[in-house]
């Protein structure tokens, strides 16, 4: 275990090891994961960009590391990557703000 950090970049390479303590579930997860990212109705490139945006909204350092590299490998440009992150950011902030309607409803109900 890394002595001073919760997150260690080298741990990303060990992701596959999670199958060691629960082989059946681990294998099922990785089969599913692999299948999700195959070319389908969406291209693998489009899926990688979605993954990059979600990696940021989830604020998962491992996922950001992995999908930055993955999108670069697929020839995605910096501009496209940043736009994808803005989509994630817009949904995040939109999701916060849309709850403002709840607050407004409550205020309207409580106030005379």
């Amino acid at each position: 275990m890394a002595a001073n950090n919760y997150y260690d970049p080298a741990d990303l390479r060990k992701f596959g090891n999670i199958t060691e303590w629960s082989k059946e579930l681990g294998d099922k997860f990785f089969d599913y994961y692999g299948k999700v990212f195959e070319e389908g109705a969406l291209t693998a490139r489009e899926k990688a960009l979605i993954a990059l945006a979600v990696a940021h909204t989830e604020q998962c350092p491992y996922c950001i590391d992995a999908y930055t590299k993955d999108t670069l490998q697929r020839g995605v440009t910096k501009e496209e990557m940043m736009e994808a992150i803005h989509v994630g950011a817009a949904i995040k902030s939109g999701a916060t703000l849309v709850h403002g309607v709840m607050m407004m409803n409550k205020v309207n109900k409580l106030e005379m």
Partner: protein
Amino acid sequence: MLKEKKKKQQSLHKRHSELAVANKQLEKLSNGIFANGELPLFSEKIRETNQFPLRPNKLEILQINVGYMCNQVCEHCHVDAGPDRKEIMTRETMQQCLDVIKNTGAHTLDLTGGAPEMNPDFRWFVDEASKAGIKDFIVRSNLTIIRANKKYYDLPEFFKNHNVHVVSSMPHWTRGKTDKQRGEGVFDLSIKALQELNAVGYGMPESDLRLDLVYNPSGAYLPGDQASMEKEFKHALLEDFGIHFHNLFAITNLPVSRFLDYLIASENYEDYMYSLVEAYNPAAVKNVMCRNTISISWDGFLYDCDFNQMLELKVASKIQHISEYNEDILNDRKIIISQHCYGCTAGAGSSCQGAVAD
């Protein structure tokens, strides 16, 4: 900043960089994570599938490096080519190559460099070699050379007249990524050169004048799927510039020379080697290019591939020079390997003709 920029315009040789010395590169590739057992040696890896020692199949490609001089100084260049490199094949060595070309069983002749067109005897050599009746005659042109000087402007016509198959580097369909890897202004010149090749018929749909592009990543990561990249390139180059080409070869950058220097300087070396080893594909070993290629250097020595040439690893055979060439004896050799070979076996595999795995 200016000093840094100037440095980038010189080869490692000119800069007297430590990594200009082949042995220093080989040391680097065998020490550290490979010496302490963190990662397996390439020999150990191919031993797992009984592919050690690696041996040649039938010879198909003669690749001749006619010199290390180039008009560009690309950051990733495994040749360490540039305007300051003076190693150039002489007409005498070319004549020895021609004698071999006339009698070889190989179906492909592949001229590379540096910028092969900068060799003063390049046109004479192409003229003579094209008479030998080789099925596929490739010239690896960096594109910008076609626009570098008036004396090169007629190269598209020259290639066409000799039915040369043009293979050109194009790291991306955007200006930014291309110029960062290959130098400022390279993108615009490359686009212009491609349009001129198209104008004489190269790369056009249904045309027999073959124009293929080589993509290699502009950084410390592996190339994506070749077919998907080809689709992206075709769409973008046609839409933005009206350019046609035939195939895209996705090539992995090998940790040799300037790319190795870049990996170390940017602290990406270990991660990159991990990526290569993790992506190791035993199926790619079957078709790796050293098994069907002989690489010939500017001074006539023989190598298993262009990368081994740059690492000064001559073929392990009693025949080591073009002047004493004997295909049967040469084909009965063990291929020399080191950890750079992981670059050719990662993912779908990589060769001068792109991906190799079935």
